[in-house]
């Protein structure tokens, strides 16, 4: 069952303040990297929700994000809808698509589940690649960013946009926690631990999987809408399975099934990519080496390693402080 530990709170505070500090100190290029991290973080949160807590390792999440981006751009530019309405509709579309994919794939497990989601993802990729209405392989130009003029914020300023993405990421994180703590999320955890038993207890397993996959799809759609606004141009590349694969790498690198871990993973991955990208065009090679090292260490990613190493110690520390306070209070009462 998902729980917030003192260590997880500490990591969240660190990440959050790191993001805010970067937003106020970084130059243009740093700001772009920050925004890239924040959008990727929303996508990997969505992926961790299904993969880390439901055992549903999806290779369709890049495509769901791309679908969200395309739906948003098409509805806003070709449909002439207000960007907010277009964004809401795009998220609803990805949620519905996610639900259907989840419902269809619910009966398969492990490698078969991965294959099935891969097939759905690639279907989406081929469609947008071929379809002239959506610009084919040329992609589409976006409608620009949300207008927050009514509260005096100009999102075309890269700092404001980074902070906006941070706020959305914060909301996405809270939503993920709320889902995991709901009856639905608890059932999902039960399904991951023992699907057969959950069914024998009377749970309609496929519905739980489909519902969570739909919610996760909505989250991926939000990442897509933000990505479309960030670079103001979208191409079918976004739906390619390698985007889903990269998201999976980030989740595993950070720590599957921890929510906080994937955020750490997103930071590590994007920073590694840019820093190594300066030095060599073979940066993927080094990310691969890091990933192999993390997997071989048998820890659950970077954050899993930190948790295994320091988690018990911080828990003990908190406990000691608590007992000390209890003793003090007892002494006061006496």
């Amino acid at each position, binding site marked *: *069952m998902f729980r917030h530990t003192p260590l997880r709170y500490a990591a969240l505070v660190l990440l959050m303040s790191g993001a805010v500090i970067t937003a106020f100190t970084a130059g243009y290029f740093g700001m772009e990297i920050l925004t890239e991290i924040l959008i990727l973080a929303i996508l990997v949160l969505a992926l961790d929700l299904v993969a880390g807590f439901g055992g549903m390792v999806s290779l369709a999440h890049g495509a769901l994000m791309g679908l969200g981006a395309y739906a948003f751009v098409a509805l806003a530019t070709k449909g002439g809808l207000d960007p907010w309405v277009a964004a809401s509709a795009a998220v609803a579309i990805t949620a519905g698509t996610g639900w259907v994919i989840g419902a269809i794939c619910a009966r398969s497990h492990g490698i078969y589940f991965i294959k099935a989601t891969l097939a759905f993802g690639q279907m989406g990729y081929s469609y947008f690649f071929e379809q002239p209405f959506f610009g084919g392989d040329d992609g589409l130009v976006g409608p620009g960013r949300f207008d927050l003029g009514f509260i005096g914020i100009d999102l075309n300023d890269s700092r404001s946009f980074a902070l906006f993405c941070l706020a959305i990421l914060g909301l996405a994180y809270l939503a993920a926690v*709320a*889902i995991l*703590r*709901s*009856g*639905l999320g*608890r*059932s999902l*955890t*039960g399904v991951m*631990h*023992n699907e*057969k*038993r*959950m*069914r*024998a*207890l*009377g*749970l*309609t*397993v496929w*519905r*739980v999987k489909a*519902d969570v996959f739909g919610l996760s799809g909505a989250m991926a759609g939000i990442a897509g809408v933000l990505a479309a606004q960030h670079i103001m141009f979208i191409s079918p590349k976004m739906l390619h399975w390698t985007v889903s694969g990269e998201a999976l790498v980030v989740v595993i690198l950070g720590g599957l099934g921890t929510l906080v871990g994937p955020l750490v993973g997103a930071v590590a991955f994007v920073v590694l990519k840019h820093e190594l990208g300066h030095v060599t065009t073979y940066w993927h090679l080094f990310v691969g080496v890091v990933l192999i090292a993390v997997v071989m260490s048998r820890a659950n990613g970077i954050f899993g390693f930190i948790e295994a190493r320091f988690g018990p110690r911080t828990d003990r520390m908190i406990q000691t402080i608590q007992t000390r306070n209890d003793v003090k209070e007892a002494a006061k009462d006496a």
Partner: protein
Amino acid sequence: MLETRNLDKSFGAVHVTRNVSLKLERGERRVILGPNGAGKTTLFNQRVGEIAPDTGQILLAGEDVTALPVAKRARRGLSRSYQKNTLFDGLTVEENLALAASVHAGLSMTLWRDALQSAQVREIVEEVANQVNLMPYIHAKVSEISYGVRRQLEVGVALATKPLVLLMDEPTSGVGPEMAKGFHDLLAGLPRDLTLLIIEHDMDLAFAVADTITVLNYGEVVFDGLPEQARGSKLLRDIYLGAWEDA
């Protein structure tokens, strides 16, 4: 309460269930005896819906449930425990029970409430934990409790769905005589209106808890009656001990 009519099942050339008809009244406690390979568990799996019978019908509370999937039968009050522990290993005893109770409470699909915190679920968890003596281990993870305690939890999880009929597949499998005695007491303490169907190897336990006894051999019902009759039955002795005499 639970009835099977002319149930028949073959796996290829192996005829595992031969025209089995059984009827359990509400509150009845029936023990199924039979040597290894007699088809006891297969019969169970057909009742709960994990295996479909070739022919025949299964009725729960008077309604035909033969075509219903496992989950739907469970929601109508048919619960089972497994011969081999089928628990949520990474979770605590409390969470194991709460997952089962939340399905019963209708909170397993909600987004707006934490099922584990609901008063109804907590009440069931406490009640069941007391019934199967799990209170001392309530916060322990499944991986931290002994095999015997896991057997108790196995039954506890099945009970936490508040079933009308509980099917227990060898609840005392693998535990010592001391624990088996504890299980007598546990079963004796369960509500009298709960219908129980228990697969058992231990004859003493069977005679101690059963209202009625069914004996299966080669997929066929060869005895159906009261424990007293079973005790003196030559047929039963032959089935269980015959192989020894032949050897």
